[in-house]
């Protein structure tokens, strides 16, 4: 089903190396909207990425580092990037060779346009 968020997420998913873009509720880890390549485990990514972002946000606040703007997890076979706004988390799952600098920039721009 298409929503008004779909074009923003689709544009992110069209970036080279991106497997999927998801907008997730930070509190319960449920998908609000997503565009993903076939075979991607959307609900699992949504839940775990939101949980990671939430943990990073709370820990950074507790450590006196202020609000979190961007979180990137690099693994041997890919990247998970997250950025949050108004208790929503924008999640990107990308291949290991993806251009993370570009994806980061596009995510931060997309986040500014996200309204529900």
């Amino acid at each position, binding site marked *: 089903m298409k929503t008004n968020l779909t074009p923003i997420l689709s544009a992110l998913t069209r970036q080279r190396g991106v497997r999927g873009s998801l907008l997730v509720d930070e509190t319960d880890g449920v998908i609000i909207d997503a565009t993903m390549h076939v075979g991607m485990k959307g609900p699992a990514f949504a839940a*775990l990425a939101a949980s990671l972002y939430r943990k990073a946000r709370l820990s950074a606040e507790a450590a006196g*580092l*202020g609000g979190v703007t961007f979180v990137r997890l690099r*693994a041997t076979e890919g990247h998970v990037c997250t950025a949050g706004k108004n208790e929503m988390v924008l999640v990107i799952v990308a291949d290991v060779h993806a251009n993370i600098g570009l994806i980061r920039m596009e995510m931060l721009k997309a986040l500014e346009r996200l309204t529900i």
Partner: protein
Amino acid sequence: MADDIRRLSEELARDPASPVYLQLGEALRRGGQLDLALKVALRGLERHPHEADAHDLLARIAVDRGELERAFDEWDMVRRIAPAHLGARKGMGYVLFKQGRYSEAQTYLSEASELDGEDETVATALAMVRVKLREGAGGAESADSDHGIQRPQRAERPQRHQASSLFDEINETGEHTALLLDATGLVMAGTYLTQDGRDVAQEVGAELSGVSDEARRAMRHLGLGNWSSLTVETDAAVVAMAPMRDDALLLVAASKAMPLGLVHRVLDRCVERANGWLGEGAR
């Protein structure tokens, strides 16, 4: 970078008296072409002997060439020409810190702080110097240290009792800080200094180590392999983490002004240093 150097070289060739030699020398220095950078700076100084920034450039080139005494002299010259030059105070403080002359380093860095109280690198460097002085390192300054700055360098590989200074050589510019945490979030090595010189490593380590547990958990379920780094950008800083043996965690915190790619380079260097140190302890 190469285009910039070509453009600046052409500009200088057209007008040898142009101040563009400062930009060209700096570009060459950043590009690691130290001999050329030195030549450009010296030629510039021939035409502009009282230009403080030219002496400042020469000092930075000297540091990159490992000529600390020369760097100190050049910054001293800068200070004489331009008494309010911040870079000169920072540079002289840096050289003295590298020589282990902490009380003198404190003097210059305090002057730098008076010139610009907002400069984070000065605040962090000053905090590091004060910690060294508190640890008694200042008391180890030899009597002959006043007669020159040729002092023995710190041993390449820190010993177990030097845990707090494990990453000092990597953090020589004071722009970032590094911590090695064990699996329970306790600090094994490194420091995390606030601008007022307090070491809050234990608090920060305890709060942030939980994030790596979350990363490990996520990777177990997502099939993306093992995690190799986690970067958290916040309003105040950039924190990068990497997993270590025995579920330990290496954490680097840097100013937001530091480029992200450089933060990761620093993280890699700290991981390498920590691996060596942990291996040393295991033997």
